């Protein structure tokens, strides 16, 4: 049985210009100890989907799902109070902006011990001891002194280490890491990612890793979900995805990897993710798709089966070629 199981998760925001569907029918399964990656451009609804799982969306959001269960419990059916018992203890999240994710008015130690006080049956001294232990675990030198520091006295990398320690504090079963390194200096990124992956391996915790970095995905994840404009366009085991991507978007993402580029110019995906005002009628990727047909532009695509990576496409690729398409429409 999987630890986290999501079916048809949708999130709609009420905005000044009408409802906006930021997440559209997304599925996800994570087993105990598994590492699942979610990739996709900015604005494709990765964060919103995971915040929906955590129950951290603002009041303007409406969350619907056929199934949203964690550890055998239906998250949507739980009362807020029962849900808060799970959040922060069994299910923890690490955010993209470590600097602004720590409360500037309280010390690191206070914020770290607070999570334990809420969920664990530890006395004050035990919490302090565990806080020191956690900071050592995430590689922060002089933990006693750092516990007394205020967040603005820490660097970005240091803050993210604290956030990781905070997520680990109650020995969770699943951690959601939302682009944990995007906001950091390039030199620090690898360190933080290594730390996270090492801790995941050591403790056997499940990990959902949201990232832009296909290279990291290839090395670490067991399974990959590809998101585009709020939709999940493909989901495959990592190896299969890199060998034979079924959705044109995935294919284009992989083609954009430096190590895969054949020519001198790095290929990129032209255009941008559609926003609220410019949603195409058919497939959302069609305006940018090399293989788009008239059908793609008018009719929303169906979801393919497991053998085709659940690709959301009229003509899923097989070995780089659209399947079931007789005549290829030549792009301009």
């Amino acid at each position, binding site marked *: 049985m999987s630890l986290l199981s999501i079916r048809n998760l949708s999130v709609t925001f009420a905005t000044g210009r009408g409802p906006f569907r930021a997440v559209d029918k997304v599925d996800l399964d994570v087993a105990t100890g598994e590492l699942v990656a979610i990739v996709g451009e900015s604005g494709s609804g990765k964060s919103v989907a995971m*915040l929906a799982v*955590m129950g*951290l969306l*603002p009041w303007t959001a409406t969350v619907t799902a056929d199934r949203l269960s964690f550890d055998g419990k239906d998250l949507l059916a739980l009362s*807020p109070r029962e849900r*808060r*018992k*799970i*959040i*922060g*203890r069994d299910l*923890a*999240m690490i*955010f993209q*902006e470590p600097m*602004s*994710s*720590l*409360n*500037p*008015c*309280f010390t690191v130690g206070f*914020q770290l011990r*607070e*999570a334990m006080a*809420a*969920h664990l049956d530890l006395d004050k001294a035990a919490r302090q001891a565990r806080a020191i232990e956690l900071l050592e675990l995430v590689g922060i030198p002089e933990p006693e002194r750092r516990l007394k520091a*205020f967040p*603005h*006295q820490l660097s970005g990398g240091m803050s993210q280490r604290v*956030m990781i320690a*905070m997520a680990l504090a109650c020995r969770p079963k699943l951690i959601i890491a939302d682009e944990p390194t995007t906001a950091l200096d390039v030199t620090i990124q690898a360190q933080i990612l290594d730390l996270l992956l090492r801790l995941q391996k050591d403790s056997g915790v499940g990990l959902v890793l949201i990232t832009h970095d296909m290279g990291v995905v290839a090395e670490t994840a067991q399974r990959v979900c590809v998101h585009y404009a709020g939709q999940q366009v493909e989901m495959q085991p990592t190896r299969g995805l890199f060998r034979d991507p079924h959705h044109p978007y995935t294919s284009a993402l992989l083609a954009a990897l430096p190590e895969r580029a054949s020519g001198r110019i790095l290929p990129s995906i032209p255009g941008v993710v559609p926003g609220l005002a410019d949603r195409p009628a058919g497939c959302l990727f069609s305006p940018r798709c090399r293989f788009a047909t008239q059908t793609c532009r008018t009719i929303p695509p169906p979801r393919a089966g497991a053998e085709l990576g659940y690709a959301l496409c009229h003509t899923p690729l097989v070995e780089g070629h659209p399947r079931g398409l007789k005549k290829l429409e030549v792009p301009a």
Partner: protein
Amino acid sequence: MFRFFIRRVALTLPTFVALMFVTFVAVRLVPGDPIEARTGERGIAPERLAMLRHELGLDRPVWQQFLDYANGIVHGDFGVSIVTKTPVLHEFAILFPATLELTLCGLIFAIVLGIPAGVIAAVKRGSFFDHSVMTVALTGYSMPIFWWGLLLIMFMSEYLGLTPVSGRMDLINYYFEPVTGFMLIDSLLSGQEGAFGSAVAHLILPSIVLGTIPLAVIARMTRSSMLEVLGEDYVRTARAKGLSPLRVVGLHALRNALIPVVTVIGLQTGTLLAGAVLTETIFAWPGVGKWLIESIARRDYPALQGGIMLISGIVILVNLIVDLTYVAINPRIRHG
């Protein structure tokens, strides 16, 4: 931190000097000679006039007079009231506790209602409660408080007979010598039964009237500050820990949201003291505000000059303290 402290204090000094200058010049611009004001309309012999002018230093160069005046103020000499012939500082010191008591009660009223109202309005944004708070705040902010005071007297005192109309104490039934000058404390110290209740009853309406505008300002500021903070990443982090909404809002969000609110509260000193002039006039409250207005009516310019100097000095000092407190409660600056 220390450098900031020094710089902030240094910035205050020119303001003080300018304040002395303005009060000095203003009183010299007032129509009518101070001598005339003393001798009345009877007229005066020229040699006596010259002597008086000499006594008061009016025959010396103006800059010399200013230096004398400034020197006096630095040594606590704010002049002598023409009417009562007592030093202005002395009169002020006797009356100021009454104003301070009223101001503090008004401020407490504003804070105790304003902050929770602002917080709840922000948390329940768009709700009926939110709209009500914003409407009341807009009305309070636009309130002519002298009229508000009259309305409350009309309704609470005249119509319902609940509260006394004027003064600080029911002087017919109770009498005791002031000790601290604060009626709430003195009435308790006096040991007279019912005196404290009388002091409280006398304070209610004036405090409400004086606290109305600060209440509106504080509620609005708390709400908007809270709305901003509730969208911050660290509030999301706090919720991600599974903390109770009370703890998330009341501790993590409020602690940050209060930083600008404390500043705004501090900046209400001026509003409160200006409001005290009106409130004390309406409720015959024997404080410095009423005294100031009466000084004008009596053409007691030294009292006016000294009073304005002292009131403004207090506002400048409080603003200074507020700035320093702001630094103290904001760790980002404290350890900057």
